[in-house]
């Protein structure tokens, strides 16, 4: 028996979704592949195959979606055993499940008459439902923009770290301006109370980062502590931030 149109569509979508997940050229369609292969297609195909008593439209949602998710979970356990928890593994296995179910289904025989939705929606009803979806999406978008714009804290990050991978002879100083306005900073390097280096003016726009490397020569390595002090130009006498490297700690790491 020829497969029905619905079966063909399901099979076609499964193949397309699997290809979109692994073929770079199909990247624009990739976001849909996870939605289709993990949450919809395998379960719906199996529910239709079994011609279950509630395999109408609502039944496809109620049983098909959970079954898809369940099959994804069980497939994942199997892929873990095969060391194949990657895009190719997921795409191949979920697509194969869907195709097997589609192949096993002989014909699109009527089961229960689809009562979940009327066969025709009136234009006004369609318009209202679409408008509802758009309004909800708009409300969520408004919330997203509001959350992005909300910043309670305005601050400056200051750090002094051994450069990764650990190299005890070089440390990196860094400043990140997370204030609400452009800020000018001054950095002083202090070793056991003595000024041994400085950057007199570092101007950063909001969001901008500045870094500089300091080579810890012998003088620094003899110091108990090498400190970096950060000042803001609007308050030149107040140490705004402090960071330091303790020489014994560097030694311990080296050992």
């Amino acid at each position: 028996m020829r497969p029905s149109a619905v079966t063909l569509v399901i099979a076609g979508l499964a193949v397309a979704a699997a290809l979109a997940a692994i073929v770079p050229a199909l990247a624009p369609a990739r976001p849909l592949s996870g939605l289709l292969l993990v949450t919809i297609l395998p379960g719906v195909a199996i529910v239709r195959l079994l011609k279950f008593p509630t395999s109408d439209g609502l039944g496809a949602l109620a049983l098909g979606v959970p079954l898809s998710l369940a099959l994804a979970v069980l497939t994942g356990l199997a892929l873990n055993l095969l060391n194949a928890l990657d895009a190719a593994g997921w795409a191949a296995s979920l697509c194969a499940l869907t195709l097997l179910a589609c192949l096993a289904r002989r014909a699109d025989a009527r089961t229960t008459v689809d009562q979940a939705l009327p066969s025709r929606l009136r234009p006004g009803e369609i318009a209202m439902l679409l408008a509802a979806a758009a309004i909800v999406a708009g409300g969520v978008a408004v919330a997203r923009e509001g959350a992005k714009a909300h910043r309670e804290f305005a601050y400056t990050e200051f750090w002094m770290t051994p450069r990764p991978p650990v190299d005890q002879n070089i440390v990196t100083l860094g400043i990140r301006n997370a204030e609400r306005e452009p800020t000018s900073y001054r950095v002083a390097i202090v070793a056991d109370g003595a000024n041994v280096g400085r950057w007199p003016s570092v101007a950063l726009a909001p969001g901008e980062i500045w870094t500089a490397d300091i080579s810890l020569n012998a003088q620094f390595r003899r110091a108990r502590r090498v400190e970096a002090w950060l000042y803001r130009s609007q308050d030149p006498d107040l140490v705004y931030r402090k960071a330091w490297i303790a020489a014994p700690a560097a030694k311990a790491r080296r050992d």
Partner: protein
Amino acid sequence: MSLPETWAAPRAGAVARLWGGLAQLVGLAGDVQIGAQPARHGLGWAPALALLAAVCAASCGFAANASREGFAYAIPAVYAACALFLAPMAARLVHPAASRQERIVIVLAATATLFAIRLARAPLYFVDHDEFLHWVTTQDILARGRLFTPNPLLPVSPLYPGLELATAAVATLSGLTVFASALVVLAAARMAFVAALFLAYECITQSPRVASIACMVYMGSSTFLVFDAHFSYESLAVTFLAAAWLAEAAAARAPASAPWMSGALTLPLLAALAVTHHTTAAFAAALFCAATFIEHARGAGRGANRRLLLICAAAVLLPLAWSKFFGDPTAGYLGPVLQDGLREVSRLLSFAPGRKLFVASDGEVAPLWQRWTMIGAVAALCLGLAIGFFRALRLRGPGSVGWLRLADSRLIVLALLTLAYPASILFRMTRAGWEIGNRLGSLSFFGVSLVVAIGVAAFWQGSSRNGWRAAALGLAAALVVVGGVISGEGPRLLTPARFKVEADAASVEPMGIQAAQWTGEWLGPGNTFVADRINRLLLATYGRQDVTTTLNDSRDASIAVLSQTLGRAERSVLAQLGVQYLMIDLRLTTALPVVGVYFDGGDADRSHAAPPEPKDLLKFNAEPSVSRLFDNGYLIVFDVAGLADAP
């Protein structure tokens, strides 16, 4: 005639009438009719109600922003918006004139709207405490390409990787972030869950009207809006449970279908449930066992018995096998929670002082209107249960036997499940048992919602077409749902304008996230960190650090942070845990913790009378072997690896 007889005789008629009236009221006498479904089709009022719901959801988006700006009306506005769309929807569902299609669209529209409100609450990233625990497991699956890697935040999470597997699958296939992938999985699961609930109730009662009302009442569960829709394993598990219940119930109503068919659908669902969430799997096992037992006791046919027995065996054996395979990891995790909860409940029942109702750990008191709404919701539900319980047991059906009709074993199981609801309220009145009560309540709601719906369809509204009566019941349903949301989230439904100390969602903000990301970028991943309750979530996820927890390490590192001096005990615990870095959050010094603890609730972290002093948290400044690597004015990262070798 003796005095007792003369005394009794004139009253016999009055007493009998009184008892008869009471029996009628609670459904012990009289016929139980829930009315036939009208033959009409069409969506009726559903599109207009969906549009109304959408406008209310959009207003909640604005309210979420208003909350971030500090406007006090924001949270009441959300609750008002919920009531505004839920009341007319519920009124329409209660009315007998609505068609089946209309009911389905209304129920799904309500579900989608509530999910959109949940999304507006946290539209950019995970904010709830438990979401981070499962996010770590998902990240590990994506990064390492394998399962069962340790998770210090929740050691049991990698052992029940169902939700994380589904999310990792979406993320891997689609290239979406974990957050976006989680939303895809949760949205699909949420819609499917309610659809399955509707069809299951409809199968059991043969009434789409009862099914739709029950779905609406179910939304009054305290966990429906947020907890069961957030990124935690029970959110997916309840979907598997509902679908398995539906598959079994539908097969029972269609005996002509091949018996293996329900097994082909139910078994994968139960298998996935067994590897997704331990508690829900145990609950499913209990439900199916109860249904099997009652079906057998009612003398059901051999075919039906065999099918149920197979499903029951799978529901019991699959989670047991999974649990035993991993050495029963839940005992050490669930056992103490249950013990503490039971202890507090027994204290409550003996009138010993305990948790103050409607008062959070930080002393914040729920507004009066919220308290009355919660009380009203519970009262409405209890009234609904009183009216619906015996009616549910006496509902007429093809298998009805005797006066106590007992039409369907599943209906009996769900009706008996309502007895857990009062217990859940008791647990929620304690501090240690609140979590148990919250989960027990949501599970008992499978029965509560159906019994209340039967009461509405058979008594409160019945077959009356009176719109005012339906409107009043719609308001009551809205009260139940809003009361449920308040009891779950209360005054903390939305993100507040100001950071709060150890307040879960109200403590997750961009500066803490940025600091955690800094550690991953500049210190590399996988370092052992000590941090407070919120910052360690951020470090484990955004920073990909290994954080210490009492749950995982059995040692309480908080003493090293909260103590006034860095003595031998403090150094010893840091050394034994192999701690490399501390993240100190100076904001802890500004207030008491909202959830009651700054860290894990160890000996140094209980019953705080006052916040810690800044000098205590900054004692590491004076330690010669400690480096201070990062400072943003609020959060400081100390390198304490050198302490182990310091004299």
